[in-house]
């Protein structure tokens, strides 16, 4: 599948934003959020900016972005529509929470808003994962692991950001570092399990099933067109596949191994802000690589008509 830059940026940036919103809301809900309203406001503002930049970026791959409002209408059947509805709905409690913190108003409502924000973040990221996981045409995506990976990667990147901001404000604490450590380790473990799962599955569908003919051999004689069409460019993308093994190692290194080392260093040394910053930067590179691979390694059933033997 063709990796659209706008979609890679959207899913990674918004994912990190929702992860940050989740941990921040959870910390407030449990009474563990240190500092005054400004700490909360600045952090939630960063989360909302990341989310908004991602959502705006996602409209860039649309042919008709001016009609994007219509995408909220089909939540009964479409995960993409559900994602849009959940994303917009999450703005309500998180925006109000930001407003309470900005004005410094103490309210009994902030824990409720925090709970709704955390739930909204989880639901939105789950919907993003389900957009891919619901597509039976792509065996590398049509897996229960996929929404889980979206959730855990979002949680890991959000936790690293949360740890960085708490350290910046001088409220670094052990529990935040441990949460980031565990989430990052879980992200790495899930990706290793994912790579093993897609490597072990050669695909259920064959070219003979696609044609209904040729169970003992199918050879392309004349293609239907002399140059690649939309279907081949969008669904038959394979540029990065030859580097897949190297990119997988790079993704695991930057997404999991390095952030874990940096987080341990942040917990054990006084330079926690520096190390959390390094962890965040490394995880960002790892996430982008992981998301690129998620697309580039995905094989579409329609390629059975264009020379693929299995999909």
């Amino acid at each position, binding site marked *: 599948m063709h990796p659209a830059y706008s979609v890679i940026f959207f899913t990674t940036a918004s994912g990190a934003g929702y992860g940050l919103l989740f941990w921040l809301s959870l910390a407030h809900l449990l009474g563990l959020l240190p500092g005054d309203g400004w700490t909360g406001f600045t952090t939630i503002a960063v989360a909302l900016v990341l989310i908004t930049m991602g959502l705006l970026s996602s409209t860039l791959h649309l042919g008709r972005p001016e009609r994007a409002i219509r995408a909220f209408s089909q939540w009964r059947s479409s995960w993409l529509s559900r994602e849009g509805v959940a994303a917009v709905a999450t703005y309500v409690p998180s925006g109000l929470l930001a407003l309470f913190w900005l004005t410094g108003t103490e309210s009994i409502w902030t824990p409720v808003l925090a709970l709704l924000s955390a739930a909204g973040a989880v639901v939105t990221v789950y919907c993003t994962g389900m957009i891919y996981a619901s597509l039976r*045409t792509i065996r590398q995506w049509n897996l229960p692991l996929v929404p889980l990976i979206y959730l855990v990667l979002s949680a890991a990147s959000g936790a690293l950001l949360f740890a960085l901001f708490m350290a910046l404000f001088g409220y670094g604490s052990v529990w935040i570092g441990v949460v980031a450590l565990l989430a990052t380790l879980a992200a790495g473990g899930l990706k290793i399990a994912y790579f093993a799962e897609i490597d072990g599955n050669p695909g259920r569908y064959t070219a003979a099933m696609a044609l209904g003919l040729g169970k003992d051999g*199918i050879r392309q004689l004349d293609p239907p067109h002399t140059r690649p069409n*939309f279907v081949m460019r969008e*669904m038959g993308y394979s540029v990065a596949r030859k580097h897949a093994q190297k990119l997988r190692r790079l993704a695991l290194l930057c997404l999991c191994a390095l952030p874990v080392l940096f987080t341990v260093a942040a917990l054990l040394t006084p330079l926690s802000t520096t190390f959390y910053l390094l962890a965040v930067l490394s995880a960002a590179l790892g996430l982008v690589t992981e998301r690129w691979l998620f697309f580039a390694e995905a094989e579409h059933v329609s390629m059975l008509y264009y020379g693929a033997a299995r999909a």
Partner: protein
Amino acid sequence: MTSLPNSTERKLGLVIDLDICVGCHACVTSCKEWNTGGYSAPLSDHDPYGADPSGAWLNRVHSFEVTDGDWSRTVHFPRSCLHCEEPACVTVCPTGASYKRVEDGIVLVNPDTCIGCKLCSWACPYGAREYDYDHGVMKKCTLCVDRIYNETIPEEDRIPACVRACPTGARAFGDLGDPDSDVSQSVEERGGFNLLEEFGYKPVNKYLPPRKPVEPLPQAAEEAPANTGSRLEKLFAWADRALSR
């Protein structure tokens, strides 16, 4: 609404006879000609006369060599939207632009509400939807919905353009929900089949398999003819020995 109808009153579709399709691409060009000038905006092409031509087409013809046991032959294979009974391209649509009609089962895209997110093309296992980069919306076979009910054109033209253009009669149009229709009868007689039946989207369009030869294919003789001892044979035998030295 992108939720699917429970059932449709008719199941209009195509039956494509792989036995007699000669791969002439008349259906492809006729489809393009009609649909670039009719329903919706033109089907845009990019660099059509240059080194890297591409464009939105709703019908494509592949040519394969297929082998089945010791039988093999060339099969020309037209591929377009199959107007599935349970199409995921419709249910994934976030805007409701993709829909399946209750009255005849035709799957359409509303070009005025499509946002061009391309998710429907990802959901289609048949690669039947093609994005129009100029129009910014998804394009697909409409089963010539603007011909089949069009009372302003002669009655014989009220069939899809691809069917009208086919010079060998390899394409037929009709109601596959009616067991007595000509198309349903031909599917019954010839063992018509679904593409990717295992996928479960229940295509309405059917394909008729190539006929297999009744008698074994003629084989070139492997053994030399028996020696009859004629002078001519002796001459050839001498020439063979002389040339072999």
